């Protein structure tokens, strides 16, 4: 089955209005709210009844009281009318609130389900689906689905009930007059369908052209320098103008269909009215119909036409909703590829196995662009290892395989002698902590960010010690100290301070094995010195792998692995490798800006 996620066209597709499979899923989604939905449905007959009572009262007022000059009776009917109005007011308010309540609850639940599902999906999924698109699922697609309930399902049920009621009352008042009204239905239906279909096609064209126009505009904004450099302003402006007027024309076409629909329905309604007066008038003359009945009948006829007119609009709403729910359910049905095994292997109480081990690991992100090929190495408990290598040699990939962000293609990754695929996922990630030095800070206070992921057992004293070890004392100088809120992505602390916070956070998280992904970009020398001190505090007495992008921290490592062409090319201490005068020596010289070591 093609994955709807890789199909960019799916964003613009209209669904079928009624897809039984999707409707079933929607019903399932609505199931927790069946009480609310049932309640709303119960309101509909009552509403219809109250609505239908109004013209009826009018009829009684005219026939029985006004025409009979019964002043007292008229006042009584007026009183009754007020009661009906109040009831109608109450019912409508309740109905409108219940609809919104149901819709919003469905939205809330679906959002929660989608987001909860998203965070459980594997890294590969995020590589292929840009965040923007996923946000559309969580934020706007969900709204369209809720529309399926409020404007679609509910409205259709309400309309059907009203229609049935209106027809029944009309038949009861006078079946011959009713037939006159019905005579209008076939042309009305034809017109409604014809105009609606055209309006929908026109609208689809509007969307397509708008997308094209906006796409062009966005591209122009990004490539404005090119346009200016080649003095193509006028040429581009003309192109834009053409797209713009294409869009305008299609918009006008759509407006024309839409307005014509309403106008012709209204005209037909007036024709029906004329027919009623003409035919009803003759019946009144013949005294086989009362005035009141005719007046009431005219009002019922109005109520009869409204739902028929709006039916088409509801159809379109349903189509959009179906397209959205297909995308949503497609996402929800996607099973996470990386999950904990059904029965996690028991961890050996005290094993003599290496803390970390790669055995013949091969890995590629895409098809056969191999990043690691048959790569093997191991790290003993308590050992501090650094991995170095040129850009793109798979250093960071090693870290990602260790915490099962990705699964190996071939070979095995072992932690404490147990294959990572047999570990319980959460405890593996608790045990092997991957720390990104230039890490993301989340909106929240400094303390929130430090305690991130650590269970609530961290005491204030431990927190203070972590801050001290991480040389992150600057936090106490912030206006609100640990309670200082951090802006989006840590906007209000400097880049160097962010790295110190990341180190402090790692100390608080306190994993048994630490994989440190060094920051790529450099900071000023002063911060650099602080960070180096903090890092040695972090690594002290811990099994660790440092992914070194800058070689500034590797001298102190117990062992250095040099990755090259997907394998460990050479290994040893800093001094040994320099003596060896192979890749490492060159890399090191490169880092030092061409000055030999």
């Amino acid at each position: 089955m093609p994955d709807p996620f890789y199909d960019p066209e799916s964003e613009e597709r209209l669904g079928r209005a009624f897809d039984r499979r999707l409707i079933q899923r929607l019903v399932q989604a609505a199931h927790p709210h069946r009480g609310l939905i049932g309640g709303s449905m119960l309101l509909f007959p009552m509403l219809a009844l109250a609505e239908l009572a109004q013209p009826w009262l009018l009829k009684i007022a005219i026939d029985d009281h006004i025409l009979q000059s019964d002043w007292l009776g008229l006042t009584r009917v007026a009183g009754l009318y007020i009661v009906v109005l109040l009831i109608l007011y109450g019912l409508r308010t309740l109905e409108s609130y219940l609809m919104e309540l149901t819709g919003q609850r469905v939205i809330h639940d679906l959002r929660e389900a989608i987001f909860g599902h998203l965070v459980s999906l594997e890294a590969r999924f995020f590589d292929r689906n840009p965040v923007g698109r996923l946000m559309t699922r969580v934020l706007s697609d969900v709204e369209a689905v809720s529309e399926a309930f409020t404007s679609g399902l509910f409205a259709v049920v309400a309309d059907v009930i009203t229609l049935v009621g209106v027809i029944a009352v009309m038949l009861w008042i006078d079946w011959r007059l009713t037939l006159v009204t019905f005579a209008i239905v076939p042309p009305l239906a034809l017109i409604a369908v014809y105009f609606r279909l055209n309006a929908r096609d026109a609208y689809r064209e509007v969307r397509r052209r708008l997308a094209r126009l906006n796409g062009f505009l966005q591209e122009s904004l990004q490539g404005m320098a090119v346009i200016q450099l080649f003095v193509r302003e006028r040429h581009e402006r003309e192109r834009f103008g053409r797209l713009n007027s294409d869009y305008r024309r299609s918009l006008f076409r759509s407006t024309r269909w839409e307005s014509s629909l309403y106008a012709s329905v209204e005209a037909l309604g007036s024709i029906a009215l004329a027919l009623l007066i003409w035919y009803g008038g003759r019946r009144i003359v013949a005294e086989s119909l009362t005035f009141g009945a005719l007046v009431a009948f005219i009002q019922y006829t109005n109520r009869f036409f409204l739902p028929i007119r709006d039916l088409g609009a509801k159809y379109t709403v349903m189509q959009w909703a179906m397209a959205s729910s297909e995308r949503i359910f497609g996402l929800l049905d996607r099973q996470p590829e990386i999950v904990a095994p059904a029965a996690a292997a028991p961890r050996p109480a005290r094993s003599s196995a290496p803390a970390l081990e790669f055995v013949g690991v091969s890995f590629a992100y895409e098809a056969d662009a191999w990043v690691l090929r048959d790569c093997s190495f191991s790290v003993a408990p308590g050992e501090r290892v650094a991995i170095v290598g040129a850009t793109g040699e798979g250093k960071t990939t090693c870290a990602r395989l260790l915490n099962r962000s990705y699964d190996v293609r071939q070979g095995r990754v072992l932690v404490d002698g147990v294959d990572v695929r047999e570990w319980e996922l959460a405890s593996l990630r608790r045990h092997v902590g991957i720390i990104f030095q230039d890490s993301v800070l989340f909106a929240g206070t400094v303390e929130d960010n430090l305690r991130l992921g650590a269970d609530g057992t961290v005491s204030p004293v431990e927190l203070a010690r972590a801050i001290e070890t991480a040389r992150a004392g600057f936090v106490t100088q912030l206006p609100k100290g640990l309670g200082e809120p951090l802006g989006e992505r840590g906007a209000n602390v400097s880049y160097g301070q962010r790295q110190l916070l990341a180190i402090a956070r790692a100390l608080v998280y306190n994993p048994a094995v630490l994989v440190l992904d060094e920051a790529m970009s450099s900071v000023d020398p002063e911060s650099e010195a602080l960070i180096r001190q903090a890092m040695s505090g972090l690594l002290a007495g811990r099994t660790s792998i440092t992914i070194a992008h800058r070689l500034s921290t590797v001298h102190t490592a117990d062992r250095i692995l040099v990755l090259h062409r997907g394998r460990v090319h050479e290994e040893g201490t800093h001094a040994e490798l320099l003596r060896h005068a192979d890749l490492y020596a060159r890399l090191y010289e490169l880092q030092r800006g061409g000055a030999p070591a």
Partner: protein
Amino acid sequence: MKRAIDALQTHPATAPVGYDVALIVLFAVGNGVARLGSRFAITGGCQRIEADLRNDLYAALQTFPPKFYAEHSTGDLMTRATSDLSAVRSLLGFGAISLVSTTFAVVGVLVAMLAVDRWLTLWALAPYPVLLILARRFNLRVNERTEAAQDQLSVLSARVQEYLSGMSVVRAYTLEPRARADFGQANREYLRLSLALARTQAGFAPAMGLIAGVGTLVVLWAGGRAVVDGRLSLGALVAFNGYLAYLAGPTVGLGWTLSIVRRGLTSMQRLQEVIEAVARDLPGTVVAGALRPAWTEGGLIQVRPVSGMAIGAGAVRADCTEGGLIEVRPGSDMLAAAPGLRVSHLTFAYAGRPAVLRDVSFEVAPGETVALVGPTGSGKSTVGLLLARLWEPPPDTVFLGGHDVTKLPLPSLRAALGYVPQEGFLFSRSIEENISLGRDGMGPGTLRGAAEVAGVADEVERLPDGFGAVVGERGLTLSGGQRQRVTLARALTGDPPVLVLDDAFASVDAAKEEEILTNLRTALAGRTVLLMTHRLRAARAAHRIVVLDAGRVVETGAHDDLVRAGGLYARLWRIQQLEEEIARA
């Protein structure tokens, strides 16, 4: 209708109902046609205004220098060009229609009602003051609560964005439960605020209905009494009721109309901000270009292109001489042969930042190839931007063919100077269009020739659609190197006498780069070339090399001399060799 009913009542036997029925139909059709006509006219007009506004906005955007785009994100500008523009359209379209039609409806209905019965009209209008007060108060509350809900929605979407972009950290720290809880809390808050809004809204429309219903009732009751007393005909009462119904609709919609008007005005303001940025940015910068802004009534900008501007291969005509600009005509000395380039005591800083270039001076003689090298951040690219006047250099610092570039008309400067930026920006159009950019006189032969020199012709021809292949999101994706070479071909087709290449081969592998440079050497014989590069192997072939470091010229000379000198260039050369050794290992 009134006439029909009254006729029925008074002369049951001889009532000329048919005539009245025909009248009703006639009026109904007339009303429909008139309404359609006015709708088409108004909506069509508004859509035209919107389209014009969009064109104006686009034209204004074209005149902004890169500085403007550095300060405004594409997302922000897009929002203005889309949602704000459509809000303005709603203001013009819907707002205008409903304002006009409401006014007419109210006046017409009032006149009609007064004509039927004065007292009854007073009775009928009694609830309306209440209605208006209620609508106003409601409108305020709805606005407040809508805003609160919208703000919370932004919070919610910020949460989603934050966690989804930081998924690697979420995984590493097993933050999934926390992310869910965090999202759940924001989600619940949004639910609460939406429901608060729903509560306000739920009561309103029914309340309007209730009041309108009471109005009907009052009419029915008071009017009924009048009918009973014989002061009013039954037909008049029924007609009166009908008129009243006409009045109810626009009144109920009043709140909505008001909010559309308010939103439209805010958006109009935001659009003005963009369009007026021209006034802030233009003086002293790009004014000398082909586009001169002029203000027209209503504060909207119109940009009028200077006529008679046609740029073909190597020929430049620019007819704008106003403001002391130099006139450049075909065959003028500047373009006849390759002009030289001169940078003299150039110090430059981007606004609010330390200087990136300090007292830089160097010269490229006509027909000479000079390489500008230096570590990342040494200011190489800035020199290119200033030469092409994408950023405005200080006066009397940068010269082309002996003329200060700030005094040259932009079209002629840019036609003379083939500038290839580092980033190979391609439009989602065919490769052919990307190279020609719609310039005149670019036959397939010219395009292919340029593509060949740029070393991309063979690869393009191997594509299914060849030069017709469409680049972009839904078309074909080119590698970074291919993009750069297509951009180079784009510059070459203009046949510029001066070529400025800003690290134009960064994504092309070294072997390919040398091949292209060899091609270029033949194709560009006699032309002035400034080559910015971080690949010294490419720089080695230049006549002269200028070495930049931290914004200053530190060394100048030929490759061998510089290597022997043992300065910065020699160190960079050693680094390059190490990299090659590592890559070969």
